């Protein structure tokens, strides 16, 4: 993963944490350039690393939380883990035509 993309993913994760009301930081993993370390103010430490072709591996305190498909899967996993009470919606496509 390019450093440009890595920085973008870090910003997306940080922004999502703010949306969920979780005080936390997201930093590059010093041991792996394309991975992240997430630390919450409450003391939770998570590691997040990409895995081919488009999955994400997540560990919490060294315990694996599995592989999550794509950024959408990663965000869902993090919300369920860190902000289980945050409102979770579902996209609904209506049947009314726009035009």
């Amino acid at each position, binding site marked *: 993963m390019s450093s440009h993309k890595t920085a*973008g993913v870090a910003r*997306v994760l940080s922004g999502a944490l*703010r*949306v969920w009301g979780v005080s936390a930081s997201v930093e590059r993993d010093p041991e792996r350039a394309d991975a992240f370390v997430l630390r919450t103010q409450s003391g939770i430490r998570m590691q997040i690393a990409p895995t081919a072709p488009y999955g994400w591996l997540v560990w919490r305190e060294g315990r694996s939380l599995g592989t999550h498909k794509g*950024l959408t899967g990663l965000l869902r996993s993090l919300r369920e883990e860190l902000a289980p009470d945050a409102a979770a*919606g579902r996209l*609904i496509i209506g*049947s*009314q035509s726009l035009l």
Partner: protein
Amino acid sequence: MSPLPISVVTGFLGSGKTTLLSRLLRDPALARTAVIVNEFGEVGLDHLLLEASDEEVVLLEGGCLCCKVRGDLVRTAGDLLARRARGAAAFDRIVVETTGLADPAPILQALMTDREIAEALRLESVIATVDCAAGDATLDAHPESVKQAALADRIVLTKTDLADPAASGLAERVRRINPSAPQLIALHGAVDASLLFGSSVYEQRNLALYESHAHTDDGVTSFCLRRSAPLHAVTLSLFLQTLAEHCGAKLLRLKGLVDVLESPGRPALIHGVQHVFHPPAWLEAWPDHDRTTRIVVISRGLDADWLQDLLEVLDEEVKACSIS
């Protein structure tokens, strides 16, 4: 049969909704209009097709008011359409007047999603009245009134004989809440009906009014995401899913014109109220010389940079998947 236009008139208590509507209904252009109201104001609407509706609002687990509620409003609209179909009522347009305290979002969502009526109707415009005499105090004290203005396609400034909205700063305040909604001045309810009805609310010229940087006022943040390179269709789907899933009630309204990679020259028109979206419409051509994707977001506290990053990262991911 082409869908009938339906418009929603909203606005806080005493802001002049009924006065506006009663004047509008005298306009010959609106002669064949059925009106659904859910409160009968002091000004009687002398109209043959006046229907009363009490919206049923049930607080569901998770705080969503819209998903499982099939309210009286929808039934009333359905009844009107049935009467029209059997020749018992003649109208070419429906206007819904909400209660002053109503959150318009569940009303719009019900109109968009209810299978019985959604295919027979086309959302034409959402009109919000803002009282120039009491507007500032109302916006200060009642978040419902801010949301009403934020969700509107047209803002009608009322009681301008009592206070000048430009001098008081109210017009600018409302513009910051909703920069894409043209503002109209009504004097004793008089306003040009053709500026409120008769065209699609999805006119893309309004998107051009947005600047990329965010405006925040009264807790409402509005901004326009722009992108010059086309997006993968899957990216658009993932982006909307992510917003719906994580942003919940923070997303008030989203409308946009999207350059989709798989549909060159035919942009997708998208529109949603919170997590409920119309099916995307595919235009035959771009409406103007600007070929960039423009997605206008009106929200409570969402960050423009975050959404821009989300869009870019999702598209990179989709691109990587389609190559691998």
